[in-house]
């Protein structure tokens, strides 16, 4: 039984933010011929290849600088992090190792891969989505209950 939380549902900002993400990925592939896969770009910075470092650093810098630029024009949207430090460290390690082992994350597989109609990326996206659903179910409704 699905119970939608209508008070939290923000369809227009979600959709327009998504379109903006799509435009960002489109710009990178059309002008530069590169995939906007954030975990892959980070991994590439840690194991640098010739001529592939500067664009990666510039892309990551862009993402990291966004809140600074945003807050000079408007109020920064809420960033609420409820997890404690031990959980954050375990989660960070899992996200790092998992995306490296599985060759991608929400951006590389989820956005770019599905847009390419790659079956491999569709399988990856289903895998991490289901794992996310199950994890939240266990944490909130089995342990937290």
């Amino acid at each position, binding site marked *: 039984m699905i119970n939608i939380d209508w008070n939290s549902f923000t369809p227009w900002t*979600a959709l327009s933010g998504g379109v903006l*993400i799509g435009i960002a*990925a489109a710009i990178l592939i059309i002008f530069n011929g590169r*995939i906007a896969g954030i975990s892959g770009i980070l991994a590439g910075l840690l194991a640098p290849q010739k001529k592939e470092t500067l664009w990666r650093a510039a892309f990551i810098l*862009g993402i990291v600088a966004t809140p600074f630029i*945003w807050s000079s024009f408007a109020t920064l949207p809420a960033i609420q992090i409820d997890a404690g430090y031990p959980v954050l460290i375990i989660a*960070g390690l899992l996200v790092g190792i998992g995306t*490296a082992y599985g060759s991608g994350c929400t951006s590389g597989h989820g956005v770019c891969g599905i847009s390419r109609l790659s079956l491999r990326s569709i399988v990856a996206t289903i895998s991490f989505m289901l794992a*996310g659903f199950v*994890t939240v179910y266990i944490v909130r409704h089995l342990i937290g209950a």
Partner: protein
Amino acid sequence: MKFSLVSLISGLLFGAGLLLSGMANPAKVLGFLDVTGAWDPSLALVMGGAILVGLFAFSFAKKQTVSVLGFDMKLPKTTAIDKRLIIGSIGFGVGWGLAGFCPGPALVAFGAGETKAIVFVAAMIAGIAAFQVVERKRRTG
């Protein structure tokens, strides 16, 4: 120069999209992943919006051998659906479900100066680096 400038612009727009959409807020991400609780479906629309644009961009890109600016078109060639892909993705999904952060949003929150995001990003980078060390050892045997 152009190559890096385009990347910087792409990164900035990507980050802005993450902030606008609510994806950079772990509480909202967990609300989306909580399908059996009070479910917030917003983030399905983030993926939908991004893929809608992406479908056009990638169908164009697939037909090119070089990018509009003349750089080589690097589209992934791997099609394997193997143990690494699935186990890696599941591991990532568990981490995502624990903290509500995937790599992009974590970097945005890091940029916003959130201490917890800084810790998460440090652990994430340590995870990627550890993986690379193990892989290099495995290859050189």
